[in-house]
């Protein structure tokens, strides 16, 4: 928890980032990213547009289909470094200690259908995992690691002993990648930010199960839980605004902008009569509690609980009961 105090005139406002969110993060085990795909081999059906951004983001787009003609099935298969012979994406995943596939996706609304695919060089069998399809349509970046445990959703349609086949095929992988296809007839697009093999499991879940905070932590630190952050990561303050990146993620401010920080201030407002008005940056949907005391040695008491931000920006609270001489100390907590 990161706590600070600001004193203004005879009254003091305290700001704080909150620890309540920490309890929501249950995932453990830091994972290291082994290899990121930098070469995608395409296999298209229909006429999807595939664009590569300078930051390595690949975007697959489908135009809306005309209501006047027969439906067309459209898809794009993106195979990671499939032309790199002997590259990190082929070979024996078990000996290589590869435990999962990390990917970062952003899907439109309505969204494309997305699935992971893996094919063996020895048997030729093609496996798919549709759990990533759950990210469809959230319109935001989500990231996560899909375990290479077969129970995580890897399947194919033939064979009596899929578990044995899967184990065998992981020892001779020819191709791994992402398949994106148009779901329905409306225009859709899907961006793949990162696609990496992981040598240990960050967590075994589909990305759709990530909370917003987990997604943010993964994107910035490659771990999904605060407990997995190193001391160095916990102390990191990229924008130098005095608030650590982790706490900025918790508070919903921008850790890359010094002007964006979770700090409260007093607003002089002559229109509201007696009392004190406090403002702080807020995130839509978040709940905030205002605490107050007149003597720091006596501890803070809840003044108002569960203020819900109806939009992102700045939130204010007017304490009409602060009519005395003070001093008054305030703390804002994001629940």
């Amino acid at each position: 928890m990161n706590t600070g105090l600001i004193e203004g005139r005879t009254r003091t406002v305290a700001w704080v980032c909150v620890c309540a969110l920490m309890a929501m993060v249950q995932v453990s085990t830091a994972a290291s990213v082994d290899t990121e795909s930098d070469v995608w081999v395409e296999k298209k059906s229909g006429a999807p547009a595939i664009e590569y951004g300078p930051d390595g983001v690949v975007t697959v787009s489908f135009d809306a289909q005309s209501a006047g003609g027969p439906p067309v099935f459209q898809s794009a298969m993106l195979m990671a470094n499939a032309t790199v012979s002997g590259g990190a994406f082929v070979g024996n995943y078990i000996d290589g200690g590869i435990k999962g596939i990390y990917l970062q996706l952003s899907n439109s609304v309505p969204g494309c259908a997305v699935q992971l695919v893996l094919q063996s060089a020895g048997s030729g069998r093609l496996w798919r995992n549709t759990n990533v399809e759950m990210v469809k349509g959230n319109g935001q970046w989500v990231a996560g690691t899909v375990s290479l445990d077969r129970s995580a959703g890897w399947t194919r349609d033939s064979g009596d002993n899929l578990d044995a086949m899967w184990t065998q095929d992981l020892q001779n992988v020819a191709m791994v990648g992402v398949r994106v296809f148009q779901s329905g007839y409306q225009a859709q697009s899907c961006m793949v930010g990162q696609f990496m093999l992981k040598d240990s499991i960050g967590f075994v879940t589909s990305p759709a199960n990530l909370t917003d905070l987990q997604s943010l932590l993964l994107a910035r630190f490659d771990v999904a839980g605060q407990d997995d952050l190193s001391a160095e990561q916990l102390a990191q303050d990229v924008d130098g605004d005095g608030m650590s990146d982790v706490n900025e993620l918790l508070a919903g401010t921008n850790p890359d902008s010094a002007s964006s920080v979770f700090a409260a201030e007093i607003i002089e407002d002559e229109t509201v009569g007696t009392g004190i008005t406090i403002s702080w940056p807020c995130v839509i949907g978040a709940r905030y509690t205002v605490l107050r005391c007149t003597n720091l040695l006596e501890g803070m008491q809840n003044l108002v609980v569960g203020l819900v931000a109806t939009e992102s920006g700045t939130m204010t609270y007017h304490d009409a009961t602060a009519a005395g001489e003070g001093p008054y100390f305030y703390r804002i907590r994001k629940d």
Partner: protein
Amino acid sequence: MVAVSTYRTVRFVVVVSGILLLGCGHVFSVDAVLPYDNGFESYDLGALSTGGTEWSVANGGAVVSSSPVMTGLGTKSLKLTNGVMPVALALTVDTTGSGYTNVWCRFYAKPTGYDDAGGKPTNTADNMCVFFVNTGGWVKAYNGNVWWTNNFRLDTNKWTGFAVHMNYKNKLWDLYVSTNETFNETMRKVNTTPLAFCYDVSGTKLQKVKVTGEAVIDGMLLSKAFTTNTMTQTTLASDTRYASRIELGTVPLLKYTAPDDTMAGALGEALKAGMKGDVGGGDSVRIFHTNGWNIYELDSAMTWGAVTGAPLASLHLAPGQGVLYCRGVDTNLTAFYEQQLMTNLTDRTIYGTNNAIVRGWNMCAWPYAARSCNGTPGLGFASSAGDRIYLYRNNQYLRIHWDGTEWRNGANVATTTIQEGEGFWYFRRAGTPANWDLE
């Protein structure tokens, strides 16, 4: 004479004319890889130069010729003549690979009748299937016990299509012919009961095809097949599966019963013909059913996988259902299907809606003999004004619409004939489903 043979465990001999030759001691430059399709078009005219090819010639006499040629098979053929008899032409097949249980061998030939009193082919061990045409035009085939004779005569002055289906699972083979000198036309089975392999093979792969004697041949084709059913029908259909193309066709015109009528059953095995697997997903079939896509693709192990839609065993398919056959970059392949005369088909639901998002599209295929859209008895649709049919021909759609009375192509009355097995889209504009009366 044509002889097709294999290594000890598997040998197949086809005799079209002349004298059978079973010698197999030749050195071959290249093995033919299944599927194999050679109309001799890439060879220089004149004596066949076997270097670098899959062929071997004994006693010379194999000549690449521009006359006669089979219509539809280019401008060259291969003559076996004028050599020191018997001329033998052998094709050695690469037997690597797996996943298939059947092999088709088809070629077109003008055989010179062979006098079966003068040293007919000998059923020698290692020969799996043997047949020849005698001077009377009768096809004779060895059924593992005796020489079997078919019940009709061939005209040896005409091109005849021969197709041999080798079922390794059941160690049976069938012989089909076509006699109208039309490439890719439907063929008919000439044996009334399945023929046993001449030699009790333990192998599962064709290893050699041998043509012996005096004949002209064209369009030698070998392909894999996957269905393990013993063919019960007498009609054989073939379709070219064009590389890098999408073709709208039909499911095999055969009445499968559940669970064989699914992609997990015999129908699914039959649909593998003419298709190939690949890394990253190979050829696929796409079936639009009950207003949604069902996509099945072949992996490198030649097994179907459901990309989206119903699981393999859940989607029951019947004649009347259209299929998009999608092939990747490759060579054209030929698919063979046994086919039956379609009668008493179950009516299909034709979905309708005025909603532009959930549109009333139906992927259909015509299961009967060719019929004019405005002919009698009609196509069986209880159409309403605004209904449309889209036929996919020459890589583009041909659209006709129902004006409330008849089918029209633009402003004109449509004269379109829908071919047997031709796939098409049917758009029903009305807001409620109806039955397609398959009569």
